[in-house]
């Protein structure tokens, strides 16, 4: 099996999986019906992408691997999502800032992956790109609403930026696998996205007076399988049925 390609697919899919999970926790609890529906939509899009990546990964891995064995039967150290997406739904400002920091990178990444030499990855990127443009529009508009809404919303959003922004650099920092996949013409060189990513993010923040200090959390190594304690609890819920009732059809 092509170990690098398999892991690369997990890096791509796991971000959508864990962020989709975090958003799905909110279903039925949103501040308005409209935002509830919109966040669930984003979650649905992300899980749709997860299925495409994992189905492909299962094909690469072979044996008896399926999209579900990949989604539900790995341990903490075998998930490669960025630390940002496992952060909690502390409040709506955290949800929106987390989403915005992710979407701004996701759109650039997908644009680049549409040119991948790997046809399956290029096709998944093409399909997901439309969705991610909508996600970015939604989250950036909400960053502005909250950042420039009331004093309270500004303060809560500033606090979310301070907590979450230090994790953003992981989204645009290559791991050795990403570097190798780029050399093969399959993956994206994240260095190429950096400038535009930070510009997108900082422009929106500055428009509404949000301050992002140039801090980088040095422990943000999710793409190497080193997570926060939160991931274990996510997996506890996510995997409950598959672990309690192994080898069954649902």
């Amino acid at each position, binding site marked *: 099996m092509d170990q690098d390609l398999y892991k690369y697919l997990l890096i791509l899919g796991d971000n959508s999986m864990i962020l989709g*999970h975090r958003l*799905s*926790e909110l*279903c*039925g*609890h*949103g*501040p*308005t*019906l*409209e*935002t*509830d*529906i919109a966040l*669930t*939509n984003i*979650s*649905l899009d992300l*899980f*749709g992408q*997860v*299925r495409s990546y*994992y189905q492909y990964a299962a094909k690469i891995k072979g044996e008896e691997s399926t*999209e*579900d064995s990949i*989604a*539900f039967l790995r341990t903490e150290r075998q998930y490669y999502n960025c630390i940002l997406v496992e952060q909690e739904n502390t*409040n*709506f400002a955290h949800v929106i800032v987390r989403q915005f920091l992710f979407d701004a990178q996701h759109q650039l990444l997908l644009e680049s992956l549409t040119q991948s030499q790997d046809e399956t990855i290029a096709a998944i990127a093409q399909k997901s790109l439309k969705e991610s443009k909508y996600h970015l529009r939604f989250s950036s508009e909400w960053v*502005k*609403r*909250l950042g*420039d*809404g*009331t004093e*309270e*919303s500004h303060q*809560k959003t500033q606090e979310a930026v301070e907590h979450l922004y230090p994790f953003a650099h992981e989204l645009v920092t290559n791991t050795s696998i990403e570097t190798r996949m780029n050399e093969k013409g399959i993956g994206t060189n994240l260095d190429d996205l950096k400038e535009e990513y930070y510009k997108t993010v900082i422009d929106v923040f500055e428009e509404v007076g949000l301050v992002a200090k140039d801090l980088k959390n040095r422990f943000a190594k999710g793409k190497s399988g080193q997570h926060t304690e939160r991931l274990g609890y996510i997996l506890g*819920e*996510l995997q*409950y*049925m*598959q672990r309690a*009732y192994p080898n*069954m*059809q*649902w």
Partner: protein
Amino acid sequence: MSPEIKLEDAFQARIDDEQKIEPKDWMPEKYRKTHIRQISQHAHSEIVGMLPEGNWITRAPSLKRKLGLLAKVQDEAGHGLYLYSAAETLGISRDELFDQLHTGKAKYSSIFNYPTLSWADIGAIGWLVDGAAIINQVMLTRTSYGPYARAMVRICKEESFHQRQGYEIMLTLCQGMPEQKAMAQDALNRFWWPSLMMFGPRDSDSPNTEQSVKWKIKRKTNDELRQQFVDITVPQAEYLGITIPDPDLKWNEDRGHYDFGEIDWEEFWQVVKGNGPCNKERLKARVDAWEEGAWVREAAVAYSTKIKNNEVKRTA
């Protein structure tokens, strides 16, 4: 004859003639109030109904099931939106309706006060609860109030998809391993009677039915609808190979219907009065979402006001 009585007669004549009543038409105050009560109760049921099923989204057993469930719960939020809009045509705001829900003044379907304890409950809710809802809602597509009838047409299409999805979950469980089938049986045991209760009190104890039938808000009585549900559902349970928990259930050749046992009306009224297994937590979840979201809604209003003011300044 007073002008009011003349208007009422003309109104009843339109209903008898199967014409739809529209928001700007004259209507008796009681007709308006009854509709606000019924439509908002229905809207609240959609929104509160998101909670018991939402309880299994993060634990769904496969990616396909997770997507199906998430989409279903999202549809319910959408149904809530159409229904609140239909209620708003009668001169009440969504905020007022939420307030009635949060203060306990408005009711929602009691079925959502029962807990979802296993994955099979998601199948059972789709099969039985959506199945019971459809029977009621198909009737409501012909109800006399136009906006409500039209909302129902759209909702019914989605509900029947949900019902099939729920039945398919049950079928997969019943064709699976013994512990899966046991899970399905246990869900049926717990959801059967509460599903029958969804049709409301017996006709003899339902004071609103007569007027509702006259105004063509309802076209069948609670007992008629309940019988229809039992007749449809029994063969479906037989096909699954699980047993409906009612020793009195049997086919009655003379009536051409299934006879069934007596509902525990004491339980029914207790749950209606707020003493069901999850009433308090369901209401608390809604109130918390509303209160915790207050600053978000305020921010959105403040921001849109700023944008509008800036536009006015620019064009001035």
